[in-house]
């Protein structure tokens, strides 16, 4: 079945559910408010009627308990002394239920038989009282036996029709109904306003989510109040901010990556074009050009390799993990870098403690140490120093790489781990840097659940401190 979209959104809405729940509650309360007081007051009137009629019947019954035989005349004489004005009908019968006395104005039944159930029971010795409320009046009937020397000689029957008390109760009922009607209308209006206000905020959240999911990361929700919905709103805003940052990062990475790849490709194209187009190129120049092409190709290769390893780390799969002794890896790295250090006339030194084991991937650890040390060598001055320290600190393994180089300007420090970020653009390109080295280090450290921080050395230069959670090998624990 198809429904109008507006109708279906309303019937499925939280507001409707909210409204229906409250309506049911309000209706229940109203029914309670309307029925309970009426029932209670009605019962109270019943009780008071029964008592008063019983008292009057008792008086009549004992007044009629004379030793003489009950006749119309004797009863009339006795009843003449009593005040019967409040009663609608008084009937006195003999033991055969024949009416001896009747106060009815219309068709009094003297001489006839009163086969009322109340009188029948009274003649069997019981005291009977019935009370009925029909919404207009209380109708109470009471019957009591007349006894004489242990024998039931007759019965008294009283009937009272009381509209005044009933009117009182009806008035209360009417007032209550009016009050509940007004209260009901007010509460329904208020409920609609409140539920609208509440659901509007939920609708606003849903709308915001839709807008953001369509790609508008600028959208923010206005936060008001401090309840759960406000918390949800601010969490939503945080989430959107992070989405926006990530998206920005991704975009910049793609554009940077394409730019990085474009430059060497353009050089290669230019050089190869020159070779093709110049007819009389001497062999020396050509060799120089081809060497340049080779260098550019190598740079291209390095950049793509780094990008590959970065994206591999991003996905976080395909890394075998094992127990690694960092001292061993660091020594290997030092060995590899010592020719470069010698070339730049730098001192490369190390202080490596034993037993610094972690659980991780050897290639990545190697890359961390290599990139940090290589940076130290590249951005340094002749005669400078690069130092690698490795030690245990409680449950961590700490790797420190420091140099006496040119350092990093204050404003660049927050960005040093960003991809393609270069501190000194000109120099970095000369040194063959791609702006990816520290990004790779950062990602690799994160992949090992480690931490990395940068600080300035007191006498110039930089210091990188990397911390890994230590791997407690069983033989080591034995020695400890």
């Amino acid at each position: 079945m198809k429904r109008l979209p507006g109708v279906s959104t309303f019937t499925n809405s939280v507001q409707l559910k909210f409204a229906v729940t409250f309506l049911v509650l309000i209706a229940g309360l109203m029914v309670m408010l309307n029925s309970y007081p009426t029932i209670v007051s009605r019962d109270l009137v019943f009780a008071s009627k029964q008592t008063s009629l019983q008292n009057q019947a008792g008086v009549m019954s004992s007044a009629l308990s004379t030793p003489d035989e009950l006749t119309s005349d004797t009863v009339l004489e006795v009843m003449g002394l009593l005040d019967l004005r409040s009663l609608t009908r008084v009937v006195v019968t003999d033991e055969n239920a024949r009416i001896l006395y009747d106060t009815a104005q219309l068709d009094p039944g003297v001489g006839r038989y009163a086969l009322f159930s109340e009188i029948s029971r009274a003649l069997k010795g019981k005291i009977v009282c019935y009370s009925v409320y029909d919404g207009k009046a209380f109708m109470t009937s009471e019957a009591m036996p007349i006894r004489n020397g242990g024998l039931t000689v007759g019965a008294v029957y009283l009937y009272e029709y009381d509209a005044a008390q009933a009117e009182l109760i009806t008035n209360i009922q009417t007032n209550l109904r009016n009050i509940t009607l007004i209260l009901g209308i007010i509460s329904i209006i208020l409920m609609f306003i409140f539920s609208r206000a509440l659901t509007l905020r939920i609708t606003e959240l849903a709308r915001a989510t839709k807008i953001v999911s369509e790609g508008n990361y600028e959208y923010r929700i206005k936060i008001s109040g401090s309840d759960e919905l406000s918390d949800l709103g601010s969490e939503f805003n945080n989430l959107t901010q992070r989405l926006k940052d990530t998206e920005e990062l991704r975009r910049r990475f793609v554009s940077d990556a394409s730019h990085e790849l474009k430059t060497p490709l353009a050089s290669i194209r230019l050089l190869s074009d020159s070779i093709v187009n110049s007819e009389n190129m001497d062999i020396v120049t050509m060799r120089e050009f081809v060497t340049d092409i080779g260098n550019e190709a190598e740079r291209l290769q390095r950049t793509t390799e780094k990008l590959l390893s970065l994206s591999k780390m991003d996905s976080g799969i395909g890394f075998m993990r094992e127990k690694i002794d960092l001292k061993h890896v660091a020594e290997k790295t030092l060995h590899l870098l010592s020719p470069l250090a010698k070339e730049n006339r730098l001192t490369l030194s190390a202080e490596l403690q034993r037993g610094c084991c972690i659980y991780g991937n050897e290639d990545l650890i190697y890359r961390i140490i290599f990139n940090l040390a290589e940076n130290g060598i590249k951005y340094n001055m002749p005669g400078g120093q690069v130092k690698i320290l490795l030690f245990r600190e409680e449950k961590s393994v700490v790797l420190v790489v420091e140099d006496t180089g040119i350092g990093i300007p204050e404003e660049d420090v927050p960005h040093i781990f960003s991809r393609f970020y270069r501190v000194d653009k000109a120099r970095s390109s000369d040194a063959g840097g791609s702006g990816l080295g520290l990004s790779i280090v950062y990602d690799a450290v994160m992949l090992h659940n480690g931490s990395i921080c940068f600080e300035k050395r007191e006498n110039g230069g930089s210091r990188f401190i990397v911390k890994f959670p230590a791997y407690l090998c069983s033989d080591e624990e034995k020695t400890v």
Partner: protein
Amino acid sequence: MKRHIFIILIVLCVLLSACGEKAVSDPLESSITVYRLLRSEYQTNGELLLPEKIALDGADPVSQAVSALAETPVSDKLQSPIPKGVEILDAERNDDSVTVYMNSAYLDAEGIDKTILDSCITLTMCSIKGIDYVTICVGSEIVSNKLTPDDILLFNTITSPKKAQMRLYFPKTSGSALGAEYHTISFDEDNSAERCILDILLKGPTSADLKNAFPEGVIVLSVYTQDGVCSVSLSGLPAEDSVPTKKDAELAVYSIVNSLTSLANVKSVQILIDGEQVQSLWGFDISRPLIKNESIIGSAAVK
């Protein structure tokens, strides 16, 4: 509750007749109404006896009424009104009455139980068409003579100080006597009980056994009660020679007199024609105030 429904039904009947619709004759004409005793746990609304219509199967209605009274009722709510040991030996119909013969145990029954038994027999027998009263005998001795349904009040007829059910009298269709019918009378300062009774009398009865006392066109000019004498001034009566018999006139007059004297404050009724005191109505003497005539009720044989 049942009593309320009964009252409502009566009010409805009155309203229907007010619309000019004559009550249609009872479709269950060949049925009788058996009165039995309600068990005490069901006597919740002032009722003691419960009427129940049963269809007649063609045999003698009197003997069917006897066997219906004697049998144990099917319903749990009811019990037979006949006390243990008492038996209805025979019942015989004479014209408009039934004589019921009981065994000697009946003489031991007393008080309310005897009244209930007599009432149930009387009400049941008188529901047979044409039966007006019941006599109960043990052997050849008459114990209870000429019991009529009129002697029995089944419930409190007074509902409120301004509203009650009372018996109003109409001529029987046979034209021999007056029959009673319960009507709801409600009155106030503007509309006296006497006026209300006369309105109903002129409108006519609901029962098919009864007929209108006066022809259409008769109206009440005034009605007032002073010193126990109720003066009723009628108008629009047809001329004397066009009219019915003297018996019809007697029934018409006593339908007014007997109905009005059912009021506690009315002892006698003076009928006036167009505000004037007259010698006779259709040959029936109305020159003096008339008092209630019990003998004309039920059966013409009872004089």
